[in-house]
């Protein structure tokens, strides 16, 4: 079903939902994130391995009451200031966090996509994280007696991803670093995919993943929808924007001013 992004967010994302917006440095669905800010959604549980700038914006805009994550930095630059300000100073509102390791988080999605209540991994043990997080327990292997970590499946109310292409049937093709997108989509109750373009048919690509139309709730055409991250073979990562974010986001007033100008006034698009 092809909808505008505004229609899709309005129909499939609600206050209080758990929302996963995935894309591991590549194909991050920034434009969809900004639309959530514009629609003023509240009390979201934001789920994402690497919150990145996309969730720094949502957190700073006050959309989130909880964040589930496994690495919360500005990749290659430093800290996420809105994320830190929310955790350390409850600004603009308190932010509950649930923190994992990448391997544990990936396996939570894996279990969710597999229709299993949990997944197992060799992980968390020896880390203090085990005592400070939820949804991880140690279990014994019934064959060898080894102790392993069990992580609870994660099944977001809605997952939003960005992809390079959809075909006219609504199937989606993404390639390059495909990260956790397929698992995040299959784990969710509803799935929104923004795409660079709609094509007549897919060409073979190295390292590609197809998500069939029958598991997707809405496709939205959104060229540049992952700027300032990148879409392989469409546009490059805007590293300057990541660096500039450090300054923009550092103080509440510069952030608020930026949010007003670039997102809320509808002048969405990459930081420049």
């Amino acid at each position: 079903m092809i909808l505008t992004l505004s229609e899709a967010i309005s129909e499939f994302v609600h206050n209080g939902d758990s929302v996963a917006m995935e894309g591991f440095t590549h194909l991050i669905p920034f434009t969809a994130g900004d639309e959530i800010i514009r629609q003023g959604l509240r009390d979201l549980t934001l789920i994402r391995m690497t919150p990145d700038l996309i969730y720094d914006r949502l957190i700073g805009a006050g959309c989130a009451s909880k964040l589930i994550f496994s690495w919360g930095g500005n990749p290659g630059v430093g800290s996420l200031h809105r994320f830190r300000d929310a955790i350390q100073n409850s600004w603009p509102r308190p932010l509950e966090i649930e923190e994992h390791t990448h391997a544990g988080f990936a396996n939570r999605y894996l279990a969710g996509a597999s229709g299993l209540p949990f997944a197992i991994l060799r992980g968390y043990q020896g880390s203090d994280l085990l005592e400070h997080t939820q949804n991880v327990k140690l279990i014994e292997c019934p064959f060898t007696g080894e102790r392993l970590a069990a992580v609870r499946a994660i099944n977001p109310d809605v997952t939003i991803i960005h992809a390079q292409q959809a075909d006219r049937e609504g199937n989606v093709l993404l390639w390059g670093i495909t990260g956790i997108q397929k698992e995040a989509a299959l784990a969710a109750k509803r799935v929104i995919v923004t795409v660079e373009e709609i094509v007549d048919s897919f060409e073979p690509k190295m390292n590609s993943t197809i998500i069939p139309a029958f598991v997707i709730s809405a496709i939205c055409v959104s060229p540049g929808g992952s700027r300032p991250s990148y879409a392989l073979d469409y546009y490059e990562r805007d590293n300057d924007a990541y660096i500039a974010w450090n300054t923009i986001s550092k103080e509440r007033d510069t952030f608020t001013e930026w949010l007003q100008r670039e997102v809320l006034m509808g002048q969405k698009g990459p930081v420049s």
Partner: protein
Amino acid sequence: MSNLLESKEVLWSADEMMTVSAARSLTNSDTCFVGIGIPSTAAILAKATHAPRLTLIYESGTIDTNPTRLPLSIGDGELAQTALTVVSLPEIFNYWLQAGRIKIGFLGAAQIDKFGNINTTIIGSSYDNPKVRLPGAGGATEIAGACVNTTIICRQSTRTFLEKIDFITSCGFGSGPGSRHAFGLTGNGPKNVITDIGILEPDPETCELVLTQIHENVTREQAVESTGWNLKISDNLKVTQPPTIQELQILRALNAPAESKQ
């Protein structure tokens, strides 16, 4: 660059010596799981100098990648486009890392203790109300657990090398011999810690990190003063060969575009 070749006296920074030392620790037959920053720079430097067949793997799923410039993030397009193959995150963590296929994990640290345990989560005594919130674990906890060995690369100072760190994000040797086994960790743990001072290696019996190598122009006193615990120094302390002109040239060429951006 040309000046460097002509000058008789080669000068280098402490960070450059650290990066070059880390690069030298890698060989053609290694598979290396790389984090971003100095670990990545060191690994790319190794491929560009003595270890062109070194296999680099990033947690973004890029296997056997051959970047010609420094990626700013672990998922840069450069890493995907120069990779033999790219796999999903469940696959990179389960099939490749967890299964023990990676020989060396290159890790950074905000804090480290004498057993090679690493903190990248919080500064301060309270997890819920930290003084400083750091990015967290990312791939590090399981890299530290499952790689055959790890190499930790970080600047040495009394702010980072602590008797007791605020939070153990990733286990080195835990509280000493036996800890890794008790935690079910399948890798051997830290092989060494490479710093701007020298190289520390775990004592085979106590697991405590001991200074076994010191960089040229660094004194034993500086090493001790830069360490928050009572640093032991090996009886056979070696001195690091200074960077070669080739190493410095390539390293500076790698860093140049990134630095010009900042």
